[in-house]
């Protein structure tokens, strides 16, 4: 087994998952010394009646809460300022974010400003610039997420933040909130979790703590994603929500990796969901790492495919087998959804001319260790749907 000489790991996140998990909210708030939460969400989630479920959890507690259900798909700094005034005027002392992506980014930005002032946002953008713990912050996932929710990252209004103070104090995973979603949302969320955990598990900077979370996340996605798409079972959805949370923790303690940067750039440039892009790109990126020094591709076969397949595969074929497992997953999902989930970047509607732009956006400041040519190899193969290493 691989064991690093030195590593650090940080995880302050408490997870409360299961039937009626929401009902724990009053007690959990009390433990965080909070009495009046501001619930932040978007119209779509409110319309599904999900906020009523949170209200229901508080009904005998004497706790009143404020609700804001107007987070737009692309929130800006003005919204954060408005929410701050709301928060202070109504005497709130904690934040509950119900939803994914924009909702959580808004909540994190709000948490920064209510612990200081609006000007702080620009000041603390960047890496590890937040110096003190923020106010109590609870995250309630729904079926859709970007993979940033449980992590140390947030983006808003063109600013990016990275600090472990941005990890939620508590994640409450309740099956009533993780409702059946369109395949697109489920695949996108699960594929980000798979990409982040595969990156954390196979990269040279892995450690026993990131391994623990990444292993479980990969196993949950491997066992459940195709079934959830096919049958929509409730238990599987809960497992995927857990996987997303665990992957966020592993991701927060690992280098971001080329899969994240490529998927992110592809999503930005094409307007597709980042998760769908990451899902398409994942096996191709992994292929590029098979022979890279210091990577542990073979190890991921065990969590993703299970012990029988792992043990039955010769050592030198394990990495290949793991990648093929992901290719198979993609094909299954593509077939079940009758092509709604694209197999290639081309099917996804990205033009071949756009690839160069994605590659240069990815290479960016060069931190990934990949150059434009490396990226183009991945992108071109993923565009056509042709494995890089012919099997």
């Amino acid at each position: 087994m691989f064991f690093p000489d030195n590593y650090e790991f940080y995880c302050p996140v408490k997870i409360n998952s299961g039937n009626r998990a929401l009902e724990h909210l009053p007690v959990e708030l009390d433990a965080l010394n909070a009495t009046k939460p501001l619930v932040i969400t978007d119209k779509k989630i409110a319309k599904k009646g999900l906020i009523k479920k949170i209200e229901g959890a508080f009904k005998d507690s004497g706790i009143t809460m404020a609700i804001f259900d107007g987070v737009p798909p692309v929130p800006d700094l003005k919204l954060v300022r408005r929410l701050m005034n709301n928060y202070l005027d109504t005497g709130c002392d904690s934040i509950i974010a119900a939803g994914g992506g924009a909702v959580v980014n808004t909540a994190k930005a709000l948490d920064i400003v209510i612990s200081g002032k609006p000007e702080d946002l620009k000041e603390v953008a960047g890496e590890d610039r937040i110096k003190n713990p923020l106010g109590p912050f609870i995250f309630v996932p729904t079926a859709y997420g970007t993979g940033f929710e449980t992590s140390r990252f947030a983006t808003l209004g063109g600013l990016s933040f990275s600090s472990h103070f941005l990890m939620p104090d508590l994640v409450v995973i309740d099956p009533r909130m993780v409702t059946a979603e369109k395949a697109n949302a489920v695949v996108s969320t699960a594929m980000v979790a798979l990409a982040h955990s595969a990156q954390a598990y196979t990269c040279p900077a892995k450690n026993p703590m990131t391994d623990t979370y990444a292993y479980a996340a990969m196993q949950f996605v491997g066992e459940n994603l195709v079934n959830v798409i096919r049958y929509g079972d409730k238990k599987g959805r809960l497992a995927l929500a857990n996987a997303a949370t665990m992957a966020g923790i592993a991701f927060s303690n690992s280098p971001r990796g080329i899969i994240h940067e490529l998927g992110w750039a592809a999503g930005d440039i094409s307007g597709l969901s980042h998760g769908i892009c990451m899902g398409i790109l994942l096996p191709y990126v992994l292929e590029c790492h098979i022979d890279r020094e210091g990577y542990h591709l073979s190890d991921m076969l065990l969590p993703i495919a299970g012990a029988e397949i792992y043990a039955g595969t010769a050592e030198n074929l394990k990495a290949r087998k793991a990648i093929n497992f992901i290719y198979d997953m993609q094909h299954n999902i593509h077939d079940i959804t009758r092509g709604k989930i694209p197999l290639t970047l081309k099917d996804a509607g990205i033009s071949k001319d756009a690839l160069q732009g994605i590659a240069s956006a990815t290479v960016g400041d060069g931190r990934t260790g990949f150059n434009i040519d490396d990226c183009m190899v991945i992108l071109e193969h993923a565009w056509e749907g042709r494995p890089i290493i012919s099997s």
Partner: protein
Amino acid sequence: MIAGHDALEKIPGALAQLHADRPLIITDKGVSGAGLVDTVVDAIKDGVDIGAMADDVPQDSSLTFVNRLADVYRDNNCDSIIAVGGGSVMDTAKGVNIVVSENADDLMKFSGVGALKRALKPLVVIPTTSGTGSEVTLAAVIKDHERNLKMAFASYFLLPDIAILDSRMTLTLPPHLTASTAMDAMAHAVEAYTGLGKNPMSDANAIAAISLISSNLLNVIKNPSDREGRLALANGATLAGAAFSNSLVGVVHDLGHATGSVCGVPHGVCMSILLPYGMEYNMHKVAHITGELLLPMVGAEVYAGTPKHLRAEGAIAYIRKMNREIHDATDGRHARFFEEVKDRDGKRMVPRQKLEDIAGAALDDGSIFYNPEECDYEDFLMIMRAAWEGVPLDRSLIKKG
């Protein structure tokens, strides 16, 4: 959490991030006698101003002592605490932290679950055994000997800010203690995984812990200077601590606590002896998940080569085999069953006639609530008799509920 072969050197930077630079170091005579505190002091003295040092934490954490240390903290203008040692040092440090942070004159006011409402002073913990996992738990127990009370505290705010796992801290732990503390962690992980409180997070931590302990323990016992192995065991213990503090334990811990309080047998020794019996006792209820544990114990090849219905037996046999091999590798100092447990003078610690008392004491322990099968006096006694002699349980005698 910071881990590595020179993790101690990172303490000043980590404290600075918490806006602290004048720690009180809390430890016990055993730890300082082994020279471990000197190692810590050497590693940090250039980066921080050590406010004070107390190296006389008693085996049993006491309120009087906690209050005395709180005075030391205040008199020396400390702004943070570094705890170096095992369970009682950690408990004491947590107690001191409550007193100095809340200016409490009566610790009792803060006992119970969730009575603490805000962050305490920065607390850095450096475990010196790879077993208890108390570096990652949010509980503490302090005894008030005058009022004859045991105060228990549980709160998020008792979680240490930083846990340091440094291979130098466990390098000198003798093999038989390495064994019993690691098997203590193994018991945490197994009970967390098979108990009623199991969940995906505790499962993930338990599987990782079992895998690290299984693949390193015997090596470390045979080569005590194996730094990588030492660090792996320390990680295993931390993961196991995270597993059981998120899911609770069962019959193994129940009987272990009882044996500890009736006969004074160290906790880790009780755990390693009782673990296979607990697994056997619960097997009819949780054979399937007990069988899953064979994977992290022996690896995928052997696991996949073992037919499904034999995997649970395989996991139990593995623990027994491990106890036997450790017994051989420590010249018999690691006890396989209770009859073999001796104190320092070579005197038997668990006389056979005490087994009834132990079974009785086990009835009063709360650990059993999360055990898959219920357990009454006869069951406890049956397990203890088998664990005393070192024979497998007669599973046909278990009252199946």
